[in-house]
């Protein structure tokens, strides 16, 4: 123990350097963690977080009483997570390999630059772009195909629409990460495969894909911890927060955002929030454990 203090004193400059991040995290991340006790309180703005009276499991009873809403938004959250992650990973990998295989390097580079642009457009702006495509009277889709679909009140098309928007926005940038792995593959491996008579597909299958496995594993692991979280902007902005669409577009995060704005249902929301955080933690621990078993050097902790 004395050693420890002596060591810390010796490194006091490092302690000072670490302090700002320590404090920011403390006030921005750690103190709000205590806010989760709201799930067991009857929250009153005037009394504040710690002053509000406890009400035991009352909030969870409310949650059970209106479990249809809860189940629906949890289902949506999970469904979109699965679609986005599965399709997203697949397309990221395919795109990375395609760009890597392309011999017209200059062309590929320029195209890649254009493909990445959407990731830098905020959802507040994306929703106007989406509007240009799907608005009822002036949208490109309706005009081109002579339809009069009212997209903003037709819930059933939104899973597809949101998937397209998500793919459009994230795939270009998502592939950069995998390309960095591909750039690191020793080209002698490909030459050796060539000499052994392997064709393009065979060398992709036996050399390129296996080398991507560790990175895919890490990225999937990172995403598992945020299963319960969604790209809020996608569900809140792009749908224009249209109530008619909630059945297919309401996810936990957008529900909580709405609850904050409406200043209502804090009990229900707090219970949901606790559920979201705890499930996130469990999934993260589980995923890290799995990765540590399969690829120890890629585990986060």
């Amino acid at each position, binding site marked *: 123990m004395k050693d420890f203090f002596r060591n810390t004193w010796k490194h006091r400059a490092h302690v000072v*350097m670490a302090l700002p991040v320590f404090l920011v995290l403390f006030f921005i991340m750690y103190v709000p963690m205590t806010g989760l006790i709201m799930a067991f309180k009857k929250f009153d703005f005037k009394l504040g977080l710690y002053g509000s009276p406890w009400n035991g499991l009352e909030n969870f009873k409310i949650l059970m009483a209106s479990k249809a809403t809860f189940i629906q938004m949890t289902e949506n959250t999970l469904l979109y997570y699965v679609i986005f992650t599965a399709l997203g990973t697949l397309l990221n990998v395919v795109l990375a390999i395609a760009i890597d295989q392309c011999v017209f390097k200059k062309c590929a580079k320029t195209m890649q630059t254009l493909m990445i642009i959407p990731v830098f457009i905020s959802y507040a702006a994306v929703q106007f772009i989406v509007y240009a495509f799907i608005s009822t009277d002036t949208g490109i889709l309706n005009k081109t195909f002579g339809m009069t679909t009212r997209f903003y009140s037709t819930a059933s098309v939104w899973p597809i629409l949101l998937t397209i928007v998500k793919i459009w926005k994230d795939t270009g940038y998502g592939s950069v990460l995998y390309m960095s792995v591909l750039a690191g593959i020793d080209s002698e491996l490909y030459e050796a495969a060539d000499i052994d008579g392997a064709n393009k597909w065979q060398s992709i299958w036996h050399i390129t894909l296996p080398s991507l496995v560790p990175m895919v594993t890490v990225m999937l692991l990172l995403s598992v911890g945020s299963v319960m979280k969604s790209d809020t902007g996608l569900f809140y902005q792009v749908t224009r927060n249209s109530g008619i669409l909630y059945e297919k577009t309401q996810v936990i995060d957008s529900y909580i955002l709405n609850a904050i704005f409406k200043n209502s249902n804090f009990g229900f929301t707090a219970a949901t929030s606790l559920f979201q955080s705890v499930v996130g933690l469990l999934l993260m621990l589980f995923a890290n454990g799995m990765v540590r078993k399969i690829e120890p050097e890629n585990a986060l902790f």
Partner: protein
Amino acid sequence: MAKKDMDLAPSRREKKGLGQFILLFCLFLYTLFAFVPVLLTFIAAFTDEKYIAKNGFTLFPKEWSMNGVNAVLRYGNRLLTSYGITIFVTVFGTFAGLLIMSMFAYSISRPDFRLSKFLSIYVLIPMLFNGGQLSGYIVFTSMYHLKDSLWLLILPLMVSTMNVIILRTYIANSIPGELMEAAKIDGAGEYRTFFQITLPLLKPSLAAVGFMMATAYWNDWQNALLYITTDTKKPLQLLLINIQKSIEFLLNNSNVPASAKAAMGGTIPQYSSTMATVIIVIGPIMVAYPFFQKYFVKGLTVGSVKG
């Protein structure tokens, strides 16, 4: 696709068979998919308003006009103020965040610093477990009383576990520890070693992380929507959201008297002017991004927190 080639001479990078052209064409199609919506925004901003109302949005309008852009410029002061807020928040947040995160990353990567184990775990925990939006909102507003403060646009995006890990990995993998040792032997103090040796060598990683942070700040609409109420503190993204809300209001309230609409004059946001606003909001990032692209791969490698 490519036929078997037993010759030693041509390496895989040089063959230009039919397959390569098909591949190039597929990539080109995807590029169109990604870029056409962006292009459409630019075209719509310069399309005649009535033409859009009649024929819908199109990539090939027959009537062009500067009216949309002019209408946006009529926002004048509001737009300028929002620009100022967004730039201030982005620049201050990014630089302050980079500085404190790289100091932290440097500290926890010092060998023989016993506290670094604890600090590594401390920085990791928020990635595993957090209070969520509602708790954050309650704590920031009812406990810190920061509602309507620019601090709530800056602080929540300033430190992220991922960025600390990226910087830490870069220090561990790309900056030789001997350099720091040598500086110390030459009599440089801890701070001097960090600022004069480590920080300059960290540049590629700082560029990549900094650009990602800057985009996050620039594009952040959620904190602004949650916390900012005063007009003079509204960043660009909130301005965009307000425009959309006022369009919806005008559309959904047929009983807004015509005289009121007329009184709003040129500020009634419509198709082309809205798209012009979108361009003004996303433009700076489009311009800056190609300069940072080369750092994306080199500077963003992720490693384990423990190293």
